[in-house]
């Protein structure tokens, strides 16, 4: 076994048997397996070629001991002492060498082909998974844990890859070896076969029994280790609070107790784990002694020959060796199928619906938006919008305000069709957005969100996200308009600076300026600013504010904000309350009205207790 195949290295703290013990069970194994086979089946020839090679290797593996025995048999002992037939032995050794060479050549081919099969299968699978992923509705992503989705792409796919390249091979060759050995043994002597089988039953029984105990302690060890690591995580990430409240000693005490428990269980687990090897060793040697003794007894009675005994000793070993392996691989395959099930779940999730066929020219959009009698809920029976009516004229700047949870952001989610409306309709320039092809609809809208989204790429390419065919000059111009050019030029590599993940090498304010530049470059008729400045401090905000003013020029803009400074300059302020527009008007007129806005204003902006 080459070193890279050592399963213990990857699995980490679980110990040598973790793989088997943590095996999960798929919900619908048969169906998933079918789909998985279709994937593997895309490389049909590869698969059947591989199968043929594996059968050949197994046959060669079964033949080798026979030939080896034959070579040794040319050493004859008779009354005249030892007599070696070197001619015959030489021939046998040449055959043996050929068997070995062939077996090595085929093993090499098997390794290459199975790597190819597994890699090309999982490449297609990854690709399909990703393509489904980018077409999933936002609703799916909002409702599923992101870490969980990520782990499907990484762990689950990786599991399938190792299973295809290793487990399936071991399983097939294991089963073939067992069957082959059994057949050869039966041909030699059914009686001795029976004796061999008895030790196999002993093996299965004892290992099953021991595994049960081992499992108990290994699982316990895993749980304790998880708890201990959880404590570490919590105390180290919350270290400031720990120190502020002088809880260091308590934390160490708790940790000491957990470490003690882990140690005790760890020792027990290890002792039980250490029993398995010697027990299996003893059983397999009992088998050897039984065959030797019983075979010897039969040989004395001339029922079988001595060569038969020797062959038997060899094959009974071959026979029992893969049994544990098969059990292990079976568990691995089950885990992989469970993973495949999770992957297919994502692939088969409903994709975004796009049935729009209306003739809609992005360049000719004016930007009149109309929300008519909109009902919407994220969770059934918990309506967020109830009969919302809203009209925005082309070129208007409108600010949407309301308490947390009032549905401000929902308006954005609906206009961009991130979520489908329950009832009612939204139109742009009179066309129902459901009739507009999705790509055209979204191309006519640009959004700037509170949480900036930047990619691990150059600044230039991040801005170019707004318009794929933009020339470098356009990008610079857009950045200048967004007040971003200045800081970009001050970076050592300017526009070619590669951002780290999430743009963490820039400040929050700079990141926001980049997303504004992106929107400037996209140059759509409709603009949405969703709490775009809420996570920067007020002085940075002034800077961004002026960038946004130039961005909003000549566009229909929807601004969602909780900062007064952002809202005040809007043409119309719309207050959403109870899923409807409660009131609308200019800042001054709404304050004078002393209604919902006035109330919000007092509590949110002026800070007087109500």
């Amino acid at each position, binding site marked *: 076994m080459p070193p890279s195949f050592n399963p213990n290295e990857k699995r980490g703290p679980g110990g040598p048997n973790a793989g088997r013990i943590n095996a999960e069970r798929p919900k619908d194994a048969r169906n998933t397996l079918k789909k998985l086979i279709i994937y593997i089946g895309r490389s049909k020839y590869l698969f059947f070629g591989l199968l043929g090679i594996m059968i050949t290797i197994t046959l060669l593996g079964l033949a080798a001991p026979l030939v080896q025995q034959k070579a040794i048999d040319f050493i004859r002992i008779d009354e005249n002492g030892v007599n*070696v037939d070197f001619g015959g032995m030489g021939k046998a050794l040449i055959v043996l060498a050929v068997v070995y060479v062939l077996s090595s050549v085929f093993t090499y081919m098997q390794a290459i082909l199975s790597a190819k099969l597994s890699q090309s299968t999982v490449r297609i699978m990854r690709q399909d998974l990703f393509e489904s992923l980018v077409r999933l509705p936002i609703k799916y992503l909002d409702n599923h844990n992101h870490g969980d989705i990520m782990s499907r792409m990484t762990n689950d796919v990786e599991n399938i890859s190792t299973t295809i390249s290793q487990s399936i091979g071991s399983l097939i060759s294991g089963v073939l070896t067992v069957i082959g050995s059994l057949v050869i043994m039966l041909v030699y002597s059914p009686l001795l076969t029976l004796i061999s089988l008895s030790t196999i039953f002993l093996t299965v029984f004892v290992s099953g029994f021991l595994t049960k105990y081992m499992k108990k302690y290994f699982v316990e060890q895993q749980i304790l280790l998880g708890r201990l690591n959880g404590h570490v995580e919590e105390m180290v990430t919350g270290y400031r609070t720990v120190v502020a409240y*002088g809880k260091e000693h308590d934390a160490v005490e708790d940790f000491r107790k957990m470490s003690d428990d882990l140690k005790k269980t760890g*020792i027990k687990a290890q002792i039980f784990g250490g029993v398995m090897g010697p027990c299996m060793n003893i059983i397999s040697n009992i088998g050897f002694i039984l065959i030797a003794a019983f075979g010897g007894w039969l040989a004395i009675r001339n029922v079988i020959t001595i060569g038969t005994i020797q062959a038997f000793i060899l094959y009974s070993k071959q026979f029992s060796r893969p049994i544990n392996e098969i059990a292990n691989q079976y568990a691995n395959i089950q885990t992989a199928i469970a993973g495949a099930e999770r992957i297919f779940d994502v692939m088969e999730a409903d994709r975004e619906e796009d049935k729009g066929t209306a003739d809609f020219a992005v360049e000719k959009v004016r930007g009149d938006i109309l929300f008519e009698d909109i009902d919407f809920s994220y969770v059934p029976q918990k309506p967020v919008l109830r009969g919302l009516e809203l009209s925005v004229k082309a070129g208007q700047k409108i600010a949407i305000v309301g308490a947390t949870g009032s549905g401000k952001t929902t308006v954005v989610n609906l206009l961009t069709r991130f979520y489908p409306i329950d009832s009612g309709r939204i139109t742009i320039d009179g066309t129902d957005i459901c009739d507009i092809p999705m790509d055209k609809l979204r191309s006519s809208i640009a959004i700037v969100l509170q949480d900036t989204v930047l990619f691990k790429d150059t600044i230039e390419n991040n801005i170019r996200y707004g318009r794929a065919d933009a020339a470098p000059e356009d990008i610079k111009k857009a950045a200048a308009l967004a007040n971003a050019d200045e800081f970009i030029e001050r970076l050592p590599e300017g526009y070619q600076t590669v951002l780290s993940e999430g743009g963490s090498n820039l400040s929050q304010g700079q990141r926001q300026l980049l997303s504004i530049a992106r929107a400037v470059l996209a140059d759509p008729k409709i603009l949405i600013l969703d709490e775009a400045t809420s996570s920067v401090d007020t002085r940075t905000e002034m800077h961004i504010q002026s960038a946004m003013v130039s961005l909003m020029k000549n566009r229909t803009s929807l601004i969602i904000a909780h900062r007064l400074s952002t809202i005040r300059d809007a043409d119309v302020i719309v207050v959403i309350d109870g899923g409807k527009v409660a009131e609308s008007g200019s800042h001054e007129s709404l304050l004078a009205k002393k209604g919902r806005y006035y109330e919000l204003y007092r509590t949110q902006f002026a800070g007087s207790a109500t």
Partner: protein
Amino acid sequence: MLKIFRYLKPYMLFALLAPLCMVGEVMMDLFQPKLMSIIVDDGVLGQDMDLIISTGIKMLLLLIAGGACGIAASGFSGVASQSFARDLRVDVFEKVMGLSFQQTDKFTTGSLVTRLTTDITAIQQVVDFCMRMLIRDSLMFIGGILMMLTMDLHFGLVLVAALPIEIIVMVSVLRKAGPYFAQVAKRLDDVNSVVQENVTGARVVKAYVREDHETERFTKANVSLMESNLKVANLMASLQPVLSIVMNFSVVAVIFIGGLQAQAAEIQIGEIMAAITYLTRIFFGVMMMSMMFQTVSRAMASVERINEVLGTEPAVVSGTAGFDGKQQGTVSFRNVSFSYPDSAGRPVISGLSLDIGKGENIAVLGATGSGKSSLVNLIPRFYDPTEGEVLVDGVNVRDLSTEELRERIGIVLQKSELFSGTVEDNIKWGDKDAAHEEVVSAAVTAQADEFVSRMPDGYKSIIAEKGASLSGGQKQRLSISRAVLKKPEIIIFDDSTSALDLGTEARLRKGLREKLSGTTLITIAQRIASVKDCDRIAVLDHGRLVGCDTHENLLKTCEVYKDIYDSQVRSTDSAGGEL
């Protein structure tokens, strides 16, 4: 490097017994092929039933003895390695719990967590491996060679020819594979980061209709990952066949030499078979050892990382003085400068002096990066100033025992940190002996009671995943309850009310004033509206104190303050007249 193994010292007895038992197991194991050869040569071929049975029983007894030794070895090494890991773990954790923030910042929390979890587990496994597997395999290797040579010295020829080839092939392939593996890891990272970006940034991808672009980006990353994976696989594919062909040709050679020696009546058939068994064990030993070396060298990186933590001396050393009791609840900054060690000497705070009196209600205001948080972090000695001194109750904080100092200060951090346990457990961090009524009353003051009592299990509700199910404002209010329950002389709010709406915040401040009338309150805030009623407002700009006065006076005298004010509430006067 090896000083980490002093942790093994108390368990030396077990650590030595384990390999000793291993020797026993290996010896029993090594005798087995020999006994088998007796059974075959003299028993089966000589048709001697009694010999078969007596040797068989001998063999079984040896096996049982060997097995017992093996079990004992794994038991001893289990005791040694688990105890070693436990002591090491506790020591490292204790060390980490004594680090200053400057040091934890340098290590980063993520890295500290990895060191305490993954690294220690890796080291433990290697210690266990070394005690058992490494010893076992090297013994097998040496013992196997000895046994083979005792049968016939000519077998040595085979080993001399084959072993070097085996070792060279293995070492060269593994060496070549190293960089390939690194490449695979990097490309896997690339694939993951594209996925990550698309999962978290889905709204932007969709809004700009860039699904096809992203798919293309992914395809590129995916294909290069496959290519590197195949490169590794193809390289590794050659390893096993080459190794087994070397081994198998050695078997052929052993049979041939065995034949020659048998002809010369130097050796028996069973012995040839035994020699084949030894041969496979020797080769297996070599393979396992090379694997061991890989594992050990990988673990060495872990050892280094752990040693780094163990070798760090706490930067903030507690003083020994107690309080003299003359003053209570006062804080003074005397010409304080502060810079973070890695910021190339750029001062975060420079030459700042400020006196805060008992029971004062003072606010600290300034733009991001003006040094507000750094300033208050100096009070409980989370950091030490680079110049000047900080006095609490008239005593330099460096001279005070940090435990006593921090007992007098309650700090509510910018990021609320909650811990697993119930709501009540979390609040009780402020005072673990507090009665339930006191906990509730602290929560009432902190405006937390209102939502806690609405939770299904009230104060007994379990906080999971660091309070993921709570809103930012709720988490902040729980952290504040904690500080209120502590009843310290000084409470610091480090921008810890940012997620509260102003109405709630105003009620909170009113409650605090009533309940903690003698307590000094230091508040860092972004919004002027939340602090304009404070006794004084200290305004920071680029690490300097540019004003400290009441709201009204600052508006007249402080330019920076006026700027901030304008950006937040410009034109409010004309519109609402509230301010």
